[in-house]
């Protein structure tokens, strides 16, 4: 079935192929080897997270657990004590959601409009600002920590959720703007011109043409932002207060203890649990990862 579809609309296939054609063996063979390299650390993490600490101390990282225990997972999610609070990662979960959702939406919205304006509505000086943004992509975050505190203080948003949303928007802006600008630039210009001739304006073209034609790049932007913001520790801890700390603060507290005893199994379980949300997003958003409809739209 899939092969037949490929033959009908596929870019490369001149004829329907057998499942075990040489080409397929090469493709799937390569992917299998690559997948092994990518999955090996995951295997070690999962196996470790299912062992007890005495077994881990024996030091065979590849061996499957002699006695499977889910206790590290339960502990990581609901029991691990970090400081006074003994409710594991679950404590910061909703905070993380509350931080991530608005930050992702706002940052992608602003950056995509930036990219659209830069690609299709260039105004005098736009290139200068764009160049500054590109430069900004290279500034190490930590260096900007204190100047941003001062700025947030001046506009009265220091310590609030919206302050943090602004920070994420600012630091996501360089890469995302570049991403959208370059994508929109590569779309066929005739499309834009035709819409202008039909009388569509700035927002009309953005919502009715650019947005639906750019689903893959919105997915990439979402992958970037969800991952970055969900996993962010530094901004979450510097620009908010304990009652709004994201989940990564608990993750850091579980994983990063300096003088205390380290529980590697709980560390692994906690990391895998924290990574689940971005992973689900990757998998689900894959449905949007379709071929752009640009091809059909420009004909004629």
């Amino acid at each position, binding site marked *: 079935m899939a092969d037949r579809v490929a033959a009908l609309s596929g870019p490369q296939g001149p004829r329907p192929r057998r499942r075990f054609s040489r080409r397929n063996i090469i493709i799937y063979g390569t992917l299998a080897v690559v997948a092994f390299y990518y999955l090996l650390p995951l295997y070690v993490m999962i196996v470790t997270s299912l062992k007890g600490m005495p077994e881990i101390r024996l*030091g065979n990282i590849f061996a499957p657990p002699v006695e499977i225990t889910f206790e590290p997972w339960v502990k990581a999610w609901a029991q691990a004590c*970090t*400081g*006074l609070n003994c409710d594991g990662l679950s404590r910061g979960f909703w905070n993380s959601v509350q931080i991530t959702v608005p930050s992702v939406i706002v940052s992608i919205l602003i950056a995509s409009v930036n990219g659209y304006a830069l690609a299709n509505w260039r105004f005098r000086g736009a290139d200068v600002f764009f160049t500054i943004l590109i430069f900004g992509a290279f500034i190490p975050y930590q260096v900007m920590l204190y100047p941003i505190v001062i700025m947030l203080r001046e506009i009265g948003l220091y310590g609030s959720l919206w302050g943090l949303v602004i920070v994420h928007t600012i630091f996501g802006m360089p890469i995302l703007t570049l991403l959208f600008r370059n994508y929109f630039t590569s779309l066929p210009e005739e499309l834009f011109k035709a819409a202008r001739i039909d009388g569509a304006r700035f927002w009309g073209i953005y919502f009715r043409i650019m947005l639906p034609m750019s689903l893959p790049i919105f997915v990439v932007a979402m992958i970037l932002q969800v991952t970055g913001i969900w996993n962010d520790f530094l901004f979450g*801890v510097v620009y908010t*207060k304990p009652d709004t700390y994201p989940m990564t603060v608990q993750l850091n507290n579980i994983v990063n*203890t300096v*003088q*205390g*005893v380290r529980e590697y199994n709980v560390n692994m379980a906690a990391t895998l649990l924290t990574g689940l949300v971005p992973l689900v997003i990757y998998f689900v958003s894959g449905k949007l990862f379709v071929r752009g409809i640009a091809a059909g739209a420009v004909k004629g």
Partner: protein
Amino acid sequence: MIAFRTILTSTTALLAAGSAHATDLEVMHWWTSGGEAAAVAEFANAFDATGHKWIDGAIAGSGGTARPIIVSRIIGGDPMGAFQFNHGRQAEELIDAGLLRDLTGVAEAEGWKDIVNPPSLLDACTVDGKIYCAPVNIHSWQWLWLSHHAFADAGVDVPTNWDEFVAAAPALRDAGKIPLAVGGQPWQSAGAFNVLMVGIAGPDVLVRIYGDKDADLAAGPEMARVFAAAGDAREMSQGTNVQDWNQATNLVITGQAGGQIMGDWAQGEFQVAGQTAGEDYSCLPGLGINELIDTAGDAFYFPVVNDPDIAAAQDVLAATLLAPETQVAFNLKKGSLPIRGDIDLTAANDCMKKGLEILAAGNTLPATTILNTEDTNNQLNDLFVEFFNDTSITPEAAQERFVDIIANAD
């Protein structure tokens, strides 16, 4: 500085409007592992018993992670109620800028001058005669942990001092052991070197070099001996392929390594692994040569706030932290030594008891965090981690660079 003050005034004035008698006090610390969390709960319970409320702001990762948070909160005009630091020079700049509360009043009311032992701890909190921090525990670095199992395998007796240990190293090597486990992170190499320095050259040399920045002494023959010993230690540590200190400790626990120089917190790992001091492992304070310990440790500092309720709660917390019951409960769980000499720790384990005896005998020296700025300690970390991992650097060359760092330090 005036700017800081103004910010503080404006934000805390807002807070004051809604406050009641039972005050919430946000306390930031980096005690997050299981045992540490249990210890910190003792503080929190004692503080909550006074009618106030401890709001926990635990962030793991010690100084490097904590500092940007503390400084941001202060610059942002919204400081926490109290925060943990290693006492010593780390906070001197915050004190200079007038950002930290003067606790002299509490200290006098509670008689800290008489109870804090060793007195050098309180000195480390004192600037211009005023006390700015509340020390809560002592962690010492000067411990050599030895695996009985490893020495039995090598067919030699468990050494009782550094020289015997060095002499036993070839036998350990022949038995396929790493004589001395040193984890790859910079602070571990520098820490081990400082322990060697106290053991071999004695505490006075350390205090004169780090405290008085005596560059001539640093270039002298005593230090040359220390660097030669560090060369031995480097030789003995070859083959340690781990990063974390506790993985290195694990090599000692499993008998793959003969010993490790590490602070008293390593004890916890032996305990969790079900080992007994004296049977499975030994702990030698001061390398068995100079039986003394340094008094590194943790202290709480209190940012200046304009809300009188918060300030009152800060005073209560400071007094609570040093109260005898809290000290006993906290330090037993933390595995550290208490900062007052007038309390009874019968429940302590063997290695802790050794430490208590040394402390009672007054054989202490100030910690490097008290003598050096963090900048200097960081440079020393860089030097020693390079030295311990690169056999092409001779002890003499390392000493030259050491002298440079000391000569330029403040």
